[in-house]
């Protein structure tokens, strides 16, 4: 009997990827909600699972897996259920290319903006001494820097401008891509859709100047198609913060 446990935060960005991949494959898993805003991922009990202190992480029959996109690939390779990678080698290449583009070029910019408007302000309300101690417990030095910047709102204007440039360009490129094919990189729903959906599902709300029915009709058609999936509905129902409630608002807008 397979024992799968997933340590995750909200169905959003990185945590949402393996949640959705497991749900699509129909793999039962134990959900361990790990509250990023309470720094659960840097506490000793979690560091015993993933010493890097990053979420998500997954355990499967004693094996530990980290890095959201790599976990999704493992889930797809290892379990029965619908294949979330295309059969054609060139389509597979395209799916991987888009995931890297999101994970390493566009995603960090989305999250810089997300942290500055959402995570930073939420965390900042807490006791500074307690926050400082929490940051000191973060194992990866670059994550310590990122958290300090997010909490103090210290992303420089140059950094924010570059992130905004990337988000604008990335959305335009995604719009172009979805004008060529029904899904990202291929004609079927794959890991690339899961990956990119997790960072773009709220675009019509978070970036109304860049995305919406008039500006990005292809993205909106694709979002609607992905929102309609059972696995997406079930996964988003696992959310506990306002992030998940944005789902309902967008559904309402799409249905109009």
């Amino acid at each position, binding site marked *: 009997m397979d024992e799968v446990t997933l340590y995750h935060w909200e169905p959003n960005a990185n945590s949402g990827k393996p949640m959705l991949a497991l749900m699509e494959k129909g793999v039962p898993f134990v959900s361990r909600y790990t509250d990023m805003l309470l720094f659960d991922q840097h506490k000793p009990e979690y560091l015993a699972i993933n010493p890097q202190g990053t979420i998500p992480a997954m355990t499967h029959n004693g*094996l530990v*897996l*980290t*890095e959201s996109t*790599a*976990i999704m*690939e*493992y889930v797809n*390779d*290892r379990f029965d259920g619908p294949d979330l990678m295309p059969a054609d*080698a*060139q389509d*597979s*290449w395209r799916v*991987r*290319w888009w995931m*890297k*583009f999101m994970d*390493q*070029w566009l995603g*960090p910019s989305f999250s810089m903006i997300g942290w500055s408007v959402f995570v930073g302000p939420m965390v900042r309300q807490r006791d500074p001494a307690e926050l400082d101690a929490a940051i000191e417990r973060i194992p990866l*030095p*670059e*994550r310590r*820097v*990122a958290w300090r910047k997010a909490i103090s709102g210290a992303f420089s204007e140059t*950094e924010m401008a*570059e992130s905004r*440039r990337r988000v604008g*360009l990335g959305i335009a*490129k995604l719009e*172009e*891509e979805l004008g060529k094919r029904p899904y990202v990189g291929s004609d079927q729903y794959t890991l690339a859709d899961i990956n990119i959906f997790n960072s773009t599902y709220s675009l019509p709300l978070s970036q109304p100047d860049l995305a919406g029915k008039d500006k990005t009709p292809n993205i909106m058609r694709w979002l609607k198609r992905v929102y309609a999936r059972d696995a997406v509905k079930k996964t988003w129902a696992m959310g506990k913060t306002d992030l998940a409630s944005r789902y309902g608002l967008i559904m309402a807008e799409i249905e109009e």
Partner: protein
Amino acid sequence: MSAVLYHGEPNGASLTVLAALAESGVTIECRHIDLLAGERHALSGVTESIALDLGIEGEGPVLMVDGEAMTESVFLAQYFDEAAGGAGLQPADAYARWEMMMWCRQITERLSPAAALLGNMANAQDAIAAIPADAFGALASSIVSDDLRERWQDLHDGKIDAAQIADSEAKVAAAVERCEKQLADGRDWLMGSFSIADLVTYSWLAGMQTLQAAAFADASHTQAWLARVAARPSVQAALAKATVPEPLRAWAPGPEINRWG
């Protein structure tokens, strides 16, 4: 299907892809292009260009299949392996595959940008700085990606960032340490059986042996492993495509240094 692999000198990303092609047994026409002359940004017949325009790897090879420009060396290696119906470059076991992809990502995210920075400073900066202003302007304007163009511009301007150099040296040393630890149990190849991880790691590390010799001084396992990879017929075949005497000293602007550290 019409396919052509456009590649630079066999080093870094071009070396990975040329060697993977040879390992896979797939037959594809290979055409050498002069990366430092900007030829990668002047390819004809591109109908799908996003991967060429916005690829993360910098001046890596481009596989053109029916007008679609395909980039990123690890994914091209996987493509050859899969197009061959499984040439053994990726482990069959799902967990071993996950380990390989994690390893490759560490290399391409940390070692590749560091090695490219050091390699370019040592071996390409003079050539890029010597491009006359007019010609450089034309070359720069043919580069679609703002961030890649900026890396070219920095080399052209002779910009030196001491903190970035120190960070890159530390990342090369860390990659050697990682290899040394991985090979400590006496295994021949990084993942146990030979895989894309060996090719991608070799491709970025081999050129560092001359530039960062101290990092390899106490790394006997890594040195022996580098020699094993170098001796593979696929790597020899890739290196034989060089048009310069020392391809491991041939560099062109690479991936950007991770913006979040």
